[in-house]
């Protein structure tokens, strides 16, 4: 008799646990958030063909600012995808892999876009070839403010 009671108890507990898990899973939000890039970003890493250059160049003054109205501005100059201000947009607001920069009066420049979290901080990684196509540069930025 005692064994039957225990068996019943285990079955009941198992069923409740399963139902509870099911509710938990159902409640999980699966929508991917929109990627928010507005703000001013500074360079923390720069590689050329995989070789780190950040410690060898003065990158301290270079900034890119993305404004809420869809425009961007540059401070200081570097070997970058664009040389002056213009407009920007992500190819997909939820799952972007490309940031399209359009300098005033010039053609749109799509650059490879990644948005990783590195050491607990969100970074924006842009990859492109401003000179020869055989030379690839990856700029990693963190938001300044």
């Amino acid at each position, binding site marked *: 008799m005692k064994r039957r009671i225990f068996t019943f108890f285990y079955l009941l507990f198992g069923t409740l646990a399963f139902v509870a898990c099911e509710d938990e899973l159902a409640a999980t939000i699966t929508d991917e958030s929109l990627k928010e890039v507005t703000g001013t970003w500074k360079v923390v890493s720069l590689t050329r063909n995989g070789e780190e250059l950040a410690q*060898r160049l003065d990158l301290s003054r270079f900034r890119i600012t993305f404004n809420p109205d869809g425009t961007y501005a540059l401070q200081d100059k*570097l*070997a970058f995808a664009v040389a*002056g201000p213009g407009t920007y947009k992500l190819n997909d607001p939820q799952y972007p892999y490309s940031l399209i920069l359009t300098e005033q009066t010039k053609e749109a420049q799509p650059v490879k876009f990644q948005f990783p979290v590195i050491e607990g901080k969100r970074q924006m990684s842009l990859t492109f070839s*401003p000179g*020869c196509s*055989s030379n690839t*540069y990856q700029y990693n930025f963190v938001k300044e403010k």
Partner: protein
Amino acid sequence: MKMKYLIENIRYLYLLLGIAVVIFLIQCGLNAFTIEMPDSGNANEVAVFKLHGSTESVIDNSAPDPTYSTRLLVGIMVPKSWNARQNAVLSFKSGKGDEANMVLIPDSEVEPASGLNWSNAAKRRFGIGPNLFDDFEWLVYRSNNVYVFRNDDDINIDVTISCKLGPENMIAKLGFFLGSSKENLRPEDTDYTKFAFSDQFEVKNGTGEVIDFVNPQLSKIEPVKSLDNDIVTFTFDSGVTHTALSNTDDLYLCAKAYGENNTVISEVCEQTARTRLSALGGKRYRLDLWPKGFFDVPSDVIISRIEYHYTDVTGNIKVGFANTADPFKFTFICR
């Protein structure tokens, strides 16, 4: 129990013996080959390189299948700018048959021993040899037909590689290998795969300054293929030869930028932080810069080439090309 254990051990013993027999009795090895080629060729013209190799076939005639069937592999390592994928034709003559067009193994095909495509697998296995820096690609070709070897099938193989040279002046050592498709590029295999790097080969009468992959350079700029909107690295190697700057670590860049019409559009010749080279140790020094920013030219102005010297802190002592007063030269070009 003991009997079963003994039988299992005997099985392993037979297995080992079998492997040993296969290894010792079937050896269709390649002998080392020689390279026949000119010292130089003209840019954009076809040059011919020949490899002379041979096989040494030792197969036990009493084996169940006393044959070794394989395709010939030929690899070439040439500068990327030659565009050899389009411009090279490989053929061979041998005691087993001739072929006029070997087939380039496509990048989509994986070399089984490395898991990489054949081009990258060859680069991992053979590297760039005696060249000092890399702008090369390995291309691997395979014979169309399978060739069957029996014991004592010792044959000669003469491979001819015809390739249109690239447009740039350069000095390089080229790489070649001969191999067997049955063995792939197993790193431990030295019997079926032979490789060698050539003597110095020069491409003349082309564009730009000579890109010297072989000889230690007093000065070099990397990446070799760059435009004025790249970040370029100047390296001065004072250890290559004694110069007027050998006794100082305080070195500066003095450079002129030329526009598309071959006139000087900017000159930077100052002894300040932005022109100062960083010491790397071993009498080597480096400066990284973005030419458009360094020369402060507008984004729509193109710098086609530069001429430069290295100076001491006074600016009075200058070292140029080949340790002379002539400037080093560099042309911004992608191919």
